[in-house]
């Protein structure tokens, strides 16, 4: 649920990186932190971890200002993937505006993907969100590992879902991370613009929304 504070002209959106344990949600966020160069970018807060596994969540705030003075914030969260942290996942997921589902491409992890996806569906329902209308992107991560499930097979499997086409990524190598994020921003904009008329009221077009929030250092370099 977007949090709009009219007094401060501040709109806060929440995007959650969801997925099975060890699928690379935190890596996605870390890569975004280092790759992105949006108008405004806060600190990446990596909360408590144990053996490199998220215990609470990670959070990266980024932001953008509209020509109306609108303070648009996007808070990117990860959830702990391990099964036992379900109540934390549910708390982080509540009032989410968009979800990036980070799946593991390794054949041995396909069951875990399915379980995590089922858990996402269940928790969305518990916090009053509808998986069919929530802006969401499904990313298959770890493409750099040899022997991963064939992309065509994955695309075919997901072809009839609202989340096709899938985004292939290797978060560790920084590939597909920004692409996933941009795809999500695109879907998120459609929903948010409908409610807050970003373009008309605040001069934030789809183009500004996506590019403003996902501007990367590489792109800057390319321009130069």
């Amino acid at each position, binding site marked *: 649920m977007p949090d709009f504070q009219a007094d401060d002209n501040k709109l806060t959106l*929440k995007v959650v990186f969801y997925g099975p344990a060890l699928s690379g949600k935190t890596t996605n966020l870390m890569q975004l932190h280092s790759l992105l160069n949006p108008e*405004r*970018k*806060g*600190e990446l*807060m990596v*909360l*408590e971890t144990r053996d490199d596994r998220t215990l*609470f*969540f990670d*959070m990266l*705030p*980024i*932001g953008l200002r509209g020509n109306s003075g609108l303070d648009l*914030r996007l*808070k990117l*969260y990860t959830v702990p993937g391990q099964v036992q942290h379900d*109540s*934390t996942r*549910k*708390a*982080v997921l*509540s*009032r989410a505006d968009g979800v990036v589902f980070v799946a593991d491409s390794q054949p041995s992890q396909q069951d875990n993907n399915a379980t995590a996806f089922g858990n996402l569906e269940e928790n969305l329902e518990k916090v009053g969100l509808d998986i069919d209308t929530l802006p969401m992107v499904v990313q298959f991560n770890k493409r750099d590992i040899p022997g991963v499930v064939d992309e065509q097979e994955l695309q075919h499997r997901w072809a009839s879902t609202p989340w096709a086409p899938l985004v292939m990524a290797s978060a560790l190598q920084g590939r597909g991370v920004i692409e996933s994020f941009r795809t999500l921003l695109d879907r998120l904009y459609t929903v948010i613009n409908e409610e807050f008329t970003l373009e008309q009221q605040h001069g934030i077009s789809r183009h500004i929304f996506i590019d403003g929030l996902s501007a990367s250092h590489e792109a800057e370099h390319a321009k130069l």
Partner: protein
Amino acid sequence: MRSFEDDPTLQELLSADQLQRLNRALSGLCKEPVTLSEHKAGDSVPVEFNLERVGWLSGGGSRDEQLAAAELVSFLMMFVAKYRLAANLHHDTTEASYAELQRQNEALKASETRFRELSGKLQQTVDEQVDVIRQTQQELFESARLRSVGQLAAGVAHEINNPIGFISSNLRVARDYVEDLKEIAPDTPANRDLLQDFQELLTESIDGTSRIASIVADLKTFSSIDQADYSLCNVNDLLQSAVHLVQTEYSHSLQIIERLNELPQVSGHPSRLSQTFFNLLDNAAQALRDEAADDASGRILVQSQVQGDTVRIVIQDNGCGIPEASRARIFDAFFTTRPVGSGTGLGLTVARDTVRAHNGNVTIDSHPRTGTRVTLTLPVKGS
């Protein structure tokens, strides 16, 4: 309620004491004292943390000092906020879990109550069933006893049949001999009286034997010990023997009007039909006895007639009738209004089951204090 993810204010991040201490420490580092507060003052610079302005820093020896101090505060804030976020999240999830636990506890309590009720009901049902079983056992025992008594009676009747036959025929011959004696013996008043008396004795005895013979015949019909299977029965005969048996039972005190029309034979189980007729007549007799006020007016009407493809039998009394409250249950097994031990509660059940087994029908019309009419219809053989 604030959610764990809401941007924290300075107050939430630092207590007043902590803020004072931070101000003291920062002032120690700067040439001039600096002050961190929530409100903008004069030359202050904003302190931002995660895109959110948490406060304003004023004082200091120079702008650079101010900015350096602000940066230091931002850096510190990150750790404070991290802890705060984790703590808030932990608090939120714990509270949610606790609420969930309480909900489950409530649900558990509710289901426990439900189960307790259920178990109570179950106990009650078991008790009721045990009662039914106990009663059924009693009834079974009683009906087995009755059956064996019936069999004994039928056996005895069978055995009596032969001697009563020759006694009866001997008595008739003896009566003829008395006629002969009348001619041979000297005609004196004493002889005449003697022979006259002798003849009367024999005539009474012949009446007696024929009564015995008819009782024996009724018993045989009733128990039909030698007719185990379906056969063609004469319903009127069965009715009559049932009437005789009831009369015997009630010492010939009943006023039973028979209106039996000629009937075709009916395929049926004679002993069961007899039992049914007897049960219905016995009920009627009981109804008259219950109404006892005026014995003379109590009547039972037994009627039989052909009606299309069926034989229709009516047994009607002008006795006490069946109270409204009992009417729905009269066919229930072991339902009886009679005192314990005097009725099995099976009479009408047997009657209904028998009639149904014959593809027939039974209906009961009753009005309290006016009487009861039981109508049986049985299909004629071949129809």
